């Protein structure tokens, strides 16, 4: 797939997510179920476009292209849309998705101006461990982003008490589920990463800054998997933890790559 076609299709996906955001906003204002239904269809078409681009790029490259900032932002955004759709289809969360969609617009919006060209895979990344490590990492991040959005919404709903958003117990349940699923994937990401580090460097835990922060992310969410069993941390506490956790995720994903140097270069 040519870079130009990639940009066109991704711009169309961006437009779809933007359209869905507007439809959900309309749904909030006019409370028409049809608008929410239309938003769901629009998000699905955005995801379908993104999936097409992802598969075409994967086929063309011969490897999952997630080796620079463009492609990780794109993959993150794809995973987030898929993750949202999972929750929407399962629980009909409707406008709850607004926050996720905002986030997705930011991710895809940041990817679009970047160069989508696919470069040959360097030998050090030429291993299925890399692909598995990255897939699990970004799908895990997507669930953490979902939990972040649900956390924000939980706090909002506490103030607003509106029937437009799900009730607090459901939001809490969804938040806990997102954290658990994110933790499951991130654990797999850490396992694949450790095996890869062992065959690449001869040791499976590195004190390299990005690896250390991945461990922090993992430990943080491991802690969260337990905090839900403690009454004081349920609901509001969990919402705040989800927000803080996503801050840690963002720093690990973007902060380190942009502010510091590490052996996990992005661009």
């Amino acid at each position, binding site marked *: 797939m040519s870079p130009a076609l990639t940009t066109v299709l991704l711009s169309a996906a961006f437009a779809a997510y933007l359209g869905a955001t507007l439809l959900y906003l309309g749904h909030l204002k006019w409370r028409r179920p049809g608008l929410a239904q239309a938003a769901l269809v629009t998000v699905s078409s955005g995801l379908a476009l993104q999936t097409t681009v992802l598969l075409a790029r994967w086929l063309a490259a011969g490897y999952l292209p997630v080796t620079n900032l463009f492609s990780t932002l794109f993959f993150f955004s794809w995973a987030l849309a898929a993750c949202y759709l999972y929750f929407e289809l399962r629980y009909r969360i409707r406008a709850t998705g607004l926050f996720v969609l905002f986030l997705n617009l930011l991710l895809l919006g940041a990817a679009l101006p970047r160069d989508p060209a696919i470069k040959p895979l360097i030998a050090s990344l030429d291993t299925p461990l890399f692909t598995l490590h990255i897939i699990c990492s970004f799908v895990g991040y997507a669930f953490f982003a979902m939990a972040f959005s649900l956390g924000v919404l939980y706090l909002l709903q506490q103030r607003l008490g509106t029937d437009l958003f799900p009730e607090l117990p459901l939001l809490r349940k969804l938040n806990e589920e997102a954290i658990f699923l994110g*933790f*499951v994937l991130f654990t797999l990401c850490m396992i694949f990463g450790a095996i890869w580090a062992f065959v*690449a460097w001869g040791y499976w835990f590195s004190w390299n800054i990005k690896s250390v922060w991945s461990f922090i992310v993992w430990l943080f969410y491991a802690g969260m998997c337990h905090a839900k069993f403690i009454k004081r941390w349920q609901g509001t506490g969990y919402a705040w933890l989800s927000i803080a956790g996503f801050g840690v995720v963002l720093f690990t994903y973007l902060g380190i790559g942009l502010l510091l140097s590490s052996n996990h270069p992005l661009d």
Partner: protein
Amino acid sequence: MPTRLWNLLCNLKLAIWLASVATVLTMAGSIVMIKYPKTFGSIDQMILADWFARFGQARPGLSWWLWLVAGAVLLLGLNTLCCFFDWLLRIRARWRKSGEYLIHLGFILCLGAFVWGSLAGSRSEGNAIRVGESLPLAGLLPGHALRLDTFEPVFVGGQFSDMRSTLTLLRDGRELRTEVIRLNHPLTEGDLIVLPATFAQEAEGFRCDSPQGSIELRPGSVLRLPDGRVLRVLRFFADVRRGGDGRIYPVGDEVNNPAFELELLHPQDGPWRGWYLLREGLPAPLTAAGIQLQPREPLLRAISVLTINRDPGAELAKIGGILMGLGVALALLSFYAKRRRGDRPELD
């Protein structure tokens, strides 16, 4: 008292506290690590015990947080272990949590493996080995050696991409097995792991034109002349300097002022031995003997630079990782089943 201690060690809130403390301390520590690369830059190049002995103890003001992280994580490990045993004791009633507790067991094993490797492992970088040479592994795997049979750098589109070293592992001089190692494909034997790190090239002699045609001269080469004389190459240096005392001193590995030490033997005359500095031309006794040599290009030999590590904990970590992976898969499968059953213990 023992019951209270046991209850404390099985306490979930303690686990959350310890995980939080370890998280916050590691966050702070990571900033210290970046700010002080002189102290922390080599932390991955050696096992943690060696790093503490060489750098950590010398800079207690910078490394104290690492002790605290280690303390918090080890306590968390103990906490997890007790929690795991507590579950084992009640497994009949709580078998549905098998996935969760496999995660816990996996974590304990990985932690144990890390401690083991950090105390009893070893890391060694920059092991240069030339094609045809053997490298004894005395301190790492007694009685064993590695021989480099071939080396080939791989270039794709003119850019360096990979390097393939054919290594033979020897025990007491006997060949155990031969493997090609490249990026992401190390050689492992027991707790030993051998990886390609980088490569270098070294001049080992020179190609020269002579009346007999193009010849390769390197230490050990013999040139038989028509009149029965024999020219032998004793040594070669890529870069030499002539000292004030007139003697020749090697100064480096870059081809700059290359020199051969040669010996000319003749059945009747006594032998001549001396230096041929390629930039200066053949020494008089050789030209007098009718020898003609025109240096053309250096003969290069590849050096594979290997990382050789030992991690006695690696196997245990692998088992821990597999258990953790199985655990999350099982926990994932049972998560929804438990939700349907309304199984959400609120422990507080």
